[in-house]
């Protein structure tokens, strides 16, 4: 696998929502990144429905069907539906497959009957918790891969939220340990992804299904959620931002292994990914408040090609079921974006999204297209190793945050950030040296097995 050495975009100004350098087409006629933004709704089954495959099939038949119906009722031209597997759907690969097959049939009906263009994304759960199973050799590992086989037969797109390096990350994130993040997220995570994604891409190709992409939900999102809003005191927002920059190094691996996008919605690192890989990205922000709060609800849409709600539990609201309601909202969100494109006002519209959150906090700032692009550039200019590009990304991110006086930081968070920068400067340049150092330092971390990462 070669680490990317060039940017897909010459500058951030070129990056715009709805258009990607490498658009991706589906069998029902959607072109992701082909000029307009596509909504992506993600239902989550109600507790109890997971008891049997029959009850779960029925749950998804309704949840997915309601979203399709609502699009016809209000006039949304396209919709992607993602089913993020719950444990049972991946633990029993047949379940995931049956649900994919059922949804594909529903989508064919809606195309025939009304002309609605829909696509289905299956996201098996990565059951491999590093401190509990061997990442490369466990029943869970085999179940996950088998589930990809089952789903790829019917799904338009497959994705995953892979878990590599999570054991070290969890140890490091609550200890202000930036080196641990670099090791867990980039060095271990990247290696695990290369191992997984060469297999996932092969499976997808075999069934001519689209290998979507990965996300660092398990680490960078964990950091972001722990940093939380303006009232949390678990993790400094500046550290969460560095963790985000770092994770771009490992998430990029999926595309270096042949994944084509649309990327995974909860990968807030996607603007950086797009700047390098040019693949169509899926993002979530304000309209995923149903799933979690973040401080970059609008800016994260600035260069996205797909717009998602992350996940909403299926139940009734006054206006219909949650999946119908959120499909409607997402559809209206993108209708305004697509109108701006056809009107030639997309630059102005994008500026409104960016200025809404650019100074809301570190994440909004670093994910503004200009900063995301610069972080990407630092990565390709330092592509000797997963480690070197991750550190370069984090250093650049830190410099940008310290360099813009309009980005206010609390005294505490600024002090912490300056500390992380010092710590990184003190780290070895070569990945090999860094690995030696880290293997010692983290040997006592509960459940950490270097061999499971080929180390």
């Amino acid at each position: 696998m070669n680490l990317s050495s060039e940017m897909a975009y010459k500058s951030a100004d070129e990056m715009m929502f709805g258009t990607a350098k490498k658009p991706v087409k589906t069998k029902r006629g959607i072109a992701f990144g082909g000029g307009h933004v596509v909504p992506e709704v993600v239902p989550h089954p109600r507790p109890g429905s997971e008891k049997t495959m029959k009850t779960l099939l029925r749950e998804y038949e309704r949840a997915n069907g309601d979203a399709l119906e609502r699009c016809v009722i209000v006039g949304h031209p396209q919709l992607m539906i993602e089913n993020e597997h719950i444990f049972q759907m991946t633990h029993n690969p047949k379940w995931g497959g049956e649900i994919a097959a059922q949804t594909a049939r529903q989508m064919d009906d809606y195309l025939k009957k009304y002309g609605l263009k829909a696509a289905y994304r299956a996201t098996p759960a990565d059951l491999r918790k590093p401190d509990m199973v061997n990442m490369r050799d466990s029943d869970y590992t085999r179940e996950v891969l088998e589930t990809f086989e089952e789903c790829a037969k019917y799904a338009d797109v497959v994705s995953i939220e892979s878990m590599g390096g999570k054991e070290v990350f969890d140890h490091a994130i609550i200890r202000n340990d930036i080196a641990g993040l670099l090791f867990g997220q980039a060095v271990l995570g990247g290696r695990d992804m290369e191992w997984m994604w060469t297999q996932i891409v092969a499976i997808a190709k075999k069934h001519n299904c689209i290998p979507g992409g990965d996300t660092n939900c398990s680490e960078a999102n964990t950091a972001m959620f722990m940093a939380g809003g303006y009232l949390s005191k678990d993790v400094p927002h500046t550290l969460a931002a560095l963790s985000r920059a770092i994770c771009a190094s490992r998430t990029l691996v999926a595309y270096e292994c042949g994944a084509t996008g649309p990327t995974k919605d909860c990968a807030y690192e996607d603007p950086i990914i797009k700047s390098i890989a040019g693949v169509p990205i899926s993002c979530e922000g304000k309209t995923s408040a149903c799933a979690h709060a973040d401080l970059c609800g609008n800016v994260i849409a600035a260069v996205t090609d797909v717009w998602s709600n992350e996940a909403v539990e299926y139940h009734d609201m006054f206006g219909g079921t949650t999946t119908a309601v959120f499909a409607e909202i997402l559809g209206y969100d993108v209708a305004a974006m697509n109108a701006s494109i056809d009107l030639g006002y997309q630059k102005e519209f994008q500026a409104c999204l960016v200025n809404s959150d650019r100074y809301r906090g570190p994440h909004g700032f670093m994910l503004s297209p200009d900063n995301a692009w610069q972080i990407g550039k630092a990565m390709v200019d330092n592509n000797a190793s997963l480690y070197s590009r991750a550190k370069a990304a984090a250093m650049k991110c830190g410099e940008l945050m310290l360099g813009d006086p309009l980005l206010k930081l609390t005294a505490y968070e600024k002090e912490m950030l300056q500390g992380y920068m010092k710590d990184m400067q003190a780290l070895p340049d070569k990945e090999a040296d860094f690995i030696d150092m880290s293997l010692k330092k983290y040997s006592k971390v509960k459940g950490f097995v270097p061999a499971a990462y080929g180390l």
Partner: protein
Amino acid sequence: MKYLADYANILTRYDLNIEVARQAARKVAKDELLQKVADAVVKGEEEEAAKLTKDVLQKKSPMEVINEGLIPGMNEVSRLWDEGVYFLPQVILASDAMNAGIALCEEKMGKSMDKKGKVVTHTAEGDIHDIGQVIVNALLNANGFDVINLGADVPVDKVVEACRTHNPVMVTGTALMTTTMTAFPKIAAQLKRLGLAIPFVCGGGAVSEEYVTSFELGVWGKEANQAPGMAEDALSGDNWQAMRGKWNG
């Protein structure tokens, strides 16, 4: 302001894709005059229907006019509604027309014609959202049922009482507020206690299938236009379990 001439990338007018081709109403009466009556019903012309009924009543018996003119006309309307050709107002106006005609026939007979069967309808206590019920009433009426309309904001006891006195084939409830639909299980419980196992069809914005099927007698009504079909089933003797099996799940 700039306006786009092409909005294909922004929205799809599915309603245009699926509009049902209009179709002329069919002949439904074997006789010129009665067909005129039927046509007036199909067109939903109340005065016209009344006028024609008066004329025809010179030559034909009231029951003939009803069974071979007014009712066949209304059935044709129901067909056009079922096939998506007619909209609700056309059905309502047609039933107004039919009822005007029937009233004159009954006058002449000196007694009222017997309807298919009774249905008690109401909107829950504390709730004044009764449009759903209004539609239900109209459609049941149009399909020849004798509607006992209790109106909106109806106390539990009043509904139960009406069921006791009228012993309908079916009772319906409408609620659009989650804070009022709680009356339905209470009604169902009292009916059971009185041994009145009448299918209790509940609908309305706030009312979910899950909720209605959580208490005995309850059958969930999604769309008002299901009401006539449900009433037919109840009339033909289906119990609430059978109806729930057919219409819900």
